């Protein structure tokens, strides 16, 4: 078997304030090209887990390896450079609302360009061409010079995807990418993510709220409950009993098609 691409070892995160343990000794491995879905209730630690992987949040304990590099050991400068390889999309899109779509997409290239140039707003022609290609890919080419806050939710998330594509990432972290969207738009957004996974070979880690979406798009599922890993396996393995274990006795499965 090939070497796993991402290794998470005994990851623990304690928030000092309030002494909340967000992650308890979480360990798992991800192979290159997998589409791993993380499920669990709100507050179960999904977001914290994703943010530990690109160190937007500093883990308290444990080690994380990406492609053989122990990223938990990298200096801030090295980490900043490494983040170019990790794309991320967010539940609330996190776009710069008052800037144009083009500017938003170009921010995905910040890690590749010297700061003094980007401060003046200068990006190489090749970056601008890449931006247009990626906008074309998510079907927003004609919106390139529209302000980001004038777009609909689904369109904004597609801008988020184009921004992540700009990094030409090997790994994509998607933090509840569709929970702020309606069901129809959700599928269109998920399909763009699936496309990245299948055509560009990007390894995807996505947290999702709906089990039906997780089953439809994931090649593997892990489940968190109160910061602990309670399930790791194929989507088909989650039966009614498992489901109740993850979401609690009172939960009923809701379908989104």
């Amino acid at each position: 078997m090939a070497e796993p691409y991402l290794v998470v070892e005994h990851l623990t995160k304690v928030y000092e304030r309030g002494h909340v343990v967000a992650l308890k000794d979480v360990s798992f491995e991800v192979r290159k090209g997998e589409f791993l879905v993380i499920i669990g209730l709100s507050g179960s630690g999904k977001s914290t887990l994703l943010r530990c992987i690109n160190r937007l949040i500093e883990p308290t304990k444990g080690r994380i390896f990406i492609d053989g590099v122990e990223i938990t050991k990298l200096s801030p400068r090295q980490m900043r450079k490494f983040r170019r390889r990790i794309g991320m999309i967010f539940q609330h899109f996190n776009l710069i609302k008052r800037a144009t779509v083009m500017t938003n997409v170009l921010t995905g290239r910040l890690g590749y360009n010297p700061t003094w140039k980007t401060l003046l707003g200068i990006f190489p022609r090749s970056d601008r061409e890449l931006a247009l290609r990626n906008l074309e890919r998510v079907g927003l080419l004609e919106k390139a010079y529209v302000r980001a806050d004038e777009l609909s939710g689904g369109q904004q998330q597609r801008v988020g995807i184009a921004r992540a594509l700009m990094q030409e990432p090997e790994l994509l972290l998607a933090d509840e990418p569709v929970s702020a969207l309606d069901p129809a738009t959700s599928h269109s957004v998920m399909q763009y993510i699936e496309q990245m996974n299948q055509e560009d070979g990007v390894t995807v880690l996505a947290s999702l709220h709906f089990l039906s979406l997780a089953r439809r798009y994931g090649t593997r599922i892990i489940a968190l409950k109160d910061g602990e890993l309670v399930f790791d396996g194929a989507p088909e393995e989650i039966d009614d009993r498992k489901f109740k274990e993850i979401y609690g006795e009172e939960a009923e499965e809701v379908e989104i098609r």
Partner: protein
Amino acid sequence: MAVKPSAAIDAARLRRRLFALFLDWLTWGYVAYAVMYFLQEYWWSRTLYGFYNPLTLPGWGWPAAVLGTLAMAALCELTGYSLGERALKLERREERPLSREELLTGKAAGKPFWRTQWGVMSILLLALTVALGWHVVKISPEALLNPSERAREMLGEIFPPDFRYFFTPDPAFELRGFPYSILNLMVVTVFMALLATVLGAAVALPLSFFGARNIMGVSPAGWFVYGIVRGFFNVFRSIETMLWAVVFAIWIRWGSPLAGIMALTVHTIAALGKLYSEQVEGIDPGPVEAVVAAGGSRLEVIRYAVLPQVVPSFWAFTLYRWDINVRMSTVIALVGGGGIGDMLFYYKNEGEWALLGAVMATIVAVVWAMDYLSGRLRERIV
């Protein structure tokens, strides 16, 4: 989630109750002071002596006052009539099931504040404060309604104002060997305000990022710089522009517009810096996260995630400051800051009321025009 042990909760509650007791003590101290003041004004001086005589406490008076007010506070605390507890939201309202009738008529919401015991106490305290203030400041309606002879004379001469020296310099009024007209000095004044606002904003803008918790609160060194910058803002802002003008007038030269500009600029830096950095602290952290995740540096975070969010409010605050600076620059000459105020106070001292009227009318017109202009600009931006 870890649950706090109940001992910690009890300790926290005890601390809050002690603080409530302290607040009540201060309140009763204030009431005691008011009572003493009125005693001295009426009973002590007039009834006992027939002339004004300061109230002196016997040796045991001070400890008695301190202990007496403390006892009153403790009594309030024990009987539940404590304003401090109410202020700290430490009410002891018993939980009981509400009847359907109470829910229907709205009685469940409780009495309006002014009809509760705390409301009555607050109103009494407010009344006491107004009465006390009235006597401390010695407000006298008669004096206000019967202006002095000089005021009648002055008002008679101020209308119509004499605009003789609007364009032509007044030969009698000289600053450092040169005569000035109203227009000359008004131009100087407006530019004083303009320069001070532009310079102040230019310095406050970069500084404000160093005074924002969400930008600096990533390392101990960052916290240190944050503390220093915030301290600078707070201290320099609490020293009023007029006081800065005194400092700079002595430093540079009495009556020099440069002193006025420096005074306005320093206060503008501190005031705008504080307002700016509060805006920076209030941004949506989402875009910051996104730029960091894409490998952006700290400066890139500011350029791409912070600045776009704060630019509109920065403009609004700067225009607001421009208003303040225009008004301030017209009187800063009083303490040697230069500008139109030099002329204003010269005519006032000379008793040239008609000429003074012209200067005042010009100031009013210019300040109004600038207010209007900045108001329209602000509407455009926000």
